[in-house]
């Protein structure tokens, strides 16, 4: 299997504040990769560096076999990203936001968007400013999935979603992965890692450690967080 994500010695600092230090990571095609760790450990920094929101200090990132800086636009054509907080333009209608994301991509995603909206029960007639966090997150899922990307990057996707929508969300991920997509899932929910992820890594204090298995027990999982607090 080819590497869909390949990060080598990534370091990113925010001035004097620590971001991530010497992170190396490989995610194989078809994987659902669990990315866990306490708040402020550097998970979002790694993800935001991958997507080009942050300018990295050193190291390299290759996504889908392409360089994250040089082939930035080309990579994003095949990436579906869902941020931890789903914010959109408040005055726009849900349907307009979904179409806008497709239009910027220059493709017609209406059929797939309608299918996902139906599965997640998204009300497309409402304005964004009328939506709760959970409903905004559903819109974010549609925007991340409607173009059938090769790589999904989800940052705490299920916070704010009701259990039925969470179930539908993971069913959708599994369907796309079965069709050849790859998924990086940043989460604090142990059951999601155990149930859906095929491999995993933990991020602590800016450093990444690969886990031997994604099957983690409660005590081990909590120890990742306790260590951070003690430190």
């Amino acid at each position, binding site marked *: 299997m080819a590497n869909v994500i390949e990060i080598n010695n990534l370091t990113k600092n925010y001035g004097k504040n620590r971001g991530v230090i010497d992170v190396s990571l490989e995610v194989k095609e078809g994987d659902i990769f669990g990315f866990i760790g306490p708040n402020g450990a550097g998970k*979002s920094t790694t993800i935001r560096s991958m997507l080009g929101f942050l300018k990295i200090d050193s190291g390299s990132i290759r996504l889908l076999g392409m360089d994250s800086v040089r082939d930035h636009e080309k990579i*994003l*054509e095949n990436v579906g990203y869902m941020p931890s907080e*789903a*914010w959109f*333009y408040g005055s726009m209608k849900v349907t307009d936001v979904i179409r806008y994301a497709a239009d*910027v991509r220059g493709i017609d995603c209406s059929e797939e968007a309608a299918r996902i909206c139906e599965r997640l029960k998204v009300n497309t007639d409402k304005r964004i400013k009328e939506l709760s966090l959970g409903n905004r997150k559903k819109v974010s899922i549609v925007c991340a999935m409607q173009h059938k990307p090769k790589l999904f990057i989800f940052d705490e996707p299920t916070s704010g979603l009701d259990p039925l929508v969470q179930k539908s969300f993971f069913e959708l991920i599994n369907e796309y992965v079965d069709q050849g997509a790859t998924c990086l899932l940043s989460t604090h929910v142990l059951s999601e890692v155990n149930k859906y992820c095929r491999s995993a890594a933990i991020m602590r204090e800016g450093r990444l450690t690969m886990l031997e298995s994604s099957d983690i027990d409660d005590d081990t999982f909590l120890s990742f967080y306790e260590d951070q607090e003690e430190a």
Partner: protein
Amino acid sequence: MRTIFCKEMKLNIKSLLIWSLTVGGLGLICVLMYQSMEGDMQEMADAFSNMGAFSDAFGMSTLSIATLAGFFATEVGTVHGLGSGMFAAVIAIAILSKEEEGHTGEFLFSLPVSRTKVIAAKGISVLIALVAFTVICGIMYLIGVAMLGETIPNEEFIRFMAGQLLMNIEVASVCFAISSISGKNRMGLGIGIVMVMYFYDVVGRVVPDLKDYLFIGPYSYANASEIFSGAETDGKAVAVGVIIAVVCVIYAFWEYNRRDLAG
């Protein structure tokens, strides 16, 4: 890029209409007031033209407000100069920073479009809004003049509106550069910059030592009183304005492309 440009235009249209109809409407009212004041105007014009520094500052020493052109230059010139400058500042200073302030940057920049294209689309949308603002206001002023059954010199009117548009572009460029640095809407700063530029021009026309340096400010080449009194446009002031605008736009591209985007 076209999609982002269209979305920006759609989001800005309400603001454009409110500002242009307000400033244009105020200008229109000013023009219409000329008729009701015309009878008493000669006496007032004589008084205003002999008020020393005050007359110089507002151009009433070179232009009689008893004529429509003079009245237009002093009254509408001030209203449009300040109103259009503030609109330019308000629209440009938020155009880039609003993505970070509203946390929409992560959505926009996860789409396959480079930062350069986003900046270009947003910059063009500001430029089009400024042109539309100038056209709407210009039409409203001409409607006012037509309602009075009077005329104002076409060449001077076009020079005035073009000068104001260039001034707006210069103000917007400065604010565009600020918007590229800041992750927050600095509307107060933008309006403050316009006020400083305007009062620099007013004070510069009163204080003899500052007159030689008026060309630095954008209001120097857009001054209605000078234009309607037939004075030549100061090429040096226009050149400085164009250079400032170009440098600020280039800086905005450079800065926004190189820095981290807040989540």
